[in-house]
């Protein structure tokens, strides 16, 4: 499915974090920290990326007993291409703490 809108800086940051993980699986809280996005931004984005076929999601059983399973994510082949085509905006990425400009 092709995108018609430009990706937001948040989306680019999340894609970059997932790209960096390579074939490894990432989790929600870890992605929030690496991409510097809030969970309220992350999860709608993950849901959209998965619906569009850019993201795989799976439930992973915990290594130690008594812990709940975790939802893990990684980019599909199409997702890797999308991430390469949409790197994070360096000006924004280089200055964490700045919020996105509003109109």
């Amino acid at each position, binding site marked *: 499915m092709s995108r018609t809108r430009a990706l937001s800086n948040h989306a680019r940051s999340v894609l970059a974090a997932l790209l960096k993980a390579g074939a490894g699986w990432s989790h929600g*809280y870890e992605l929030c920290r690496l991409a510097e996005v809030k969970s309220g931004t992350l999860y709608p984005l993950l849901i959209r990326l998965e619906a569009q076929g850019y993201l795989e999601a799976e439930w992973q059983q915990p290594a130690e007993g008594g812990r709940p399973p975790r939802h893990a994510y990684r980019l599909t082949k199409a997702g890797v291409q999308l991430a390469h085509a949409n790197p994070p905006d360096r000006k924004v990425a280089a200055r964490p703490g700045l919020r996105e400009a509003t109109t």
Partner: protein
Amino acid sequence: MSVRFQRRVANLLCRALESILPPRLRDWGLAIRYEVAEIPEDTRALLFALESLCGLAPRAIGILLMQPFISLFGAAVHASRAGANSGFGALHSPRTVGALCAVGAVAMGLVYMTLAGAPVGYLGINAGALVIGLVLRALVSRIPGAVGRVSGALIFSLSLLLLATALLGLRIEGTARWIGFGGVFVQPSFVLLPLMLVGFSRTRTPLATIGMVVAALAMTLQPDRAMAAMMTTALAAVTATRADRPTSMAFTASLLAFVVTLLRPDAVPAAPFVDQLLFSSFAVHALAGLAVVAGLAMLLVPAIIGWSCDKDSRATYFAFGSAWLAATIAAAFGNYPTPVVGYGGSAILGYVLSLSALPRPVRSRVGSETVPPDDPQASRDIHSKIALA
């Protein structure tokens, strides 16, 4: 704020988010809850949960509000694809149809009130009550076993609220039917009694029966002839279709309550845009009268459809239809609120909430019983995902 308290609030927020997410997206809510459990610091866990709720809740609520329309559209498409020749296929879910009828009836009420020159705030209150009712209906519908194990306890608890209203509620001209919420007065019997009656028609446990008797006592104390008539008529309908000892006891109690309310004085004056609209609306404008009649007729549509399509649950649909017909007739002849089309959010909330106690369509009943609530689901519906995104 204590550390334990923060963790509990975070968990509560996650569960709230799960409950409002569409069923096929609920494992995303579960993912967030389990992710929160993995965050070592309680404050960060709470922030994570709060931000997740803020990010997903508005869209989830939007989907909830659109659900009746989506369901009906989906059913219509399914029926047309299947070549259904009865013309009834799209209407096999009385709950969905009921939600649409509620929307239609409130819209008819807004037409009436506009033509009658009601204050704009009245229109806003009714529309707001509809939105709140639809959200509550969706939440109540998702309580597992709402009609089974917990139904009796729920009916009993609600009956205590009605009794408390009769004893401690706002008193006008000797009657105590209302309670105040930040300047807005709600009539708990109109909100809760229809839900209790429809619930009782499906689950007649000893506790539910006691609840009905307590509710009858509350109607006597208030006193409220319209609600006592609603109760008596609905329980008579249940008795007629499926007579047993609990039903007979509840019916007898409600009948006695109704007789007592007829004997007691009821001097509450009529309120404009609220009471006796069935005939008075025609004096405003023919269109206003037609809007009121059409809106009131819509209230009975789910009962008619349910009676026709679901023979196993006829007692419930009969009780639902009888209750709302009784409320309409009472409002036509006495100083009682005209349900849903007249000004007042209580009847709107009551109608929409009572829909949640109607039986689910057979297909959804089977589906909901086979999916454990806390198990992650492997597959998700693509349309729901796109809708949320």
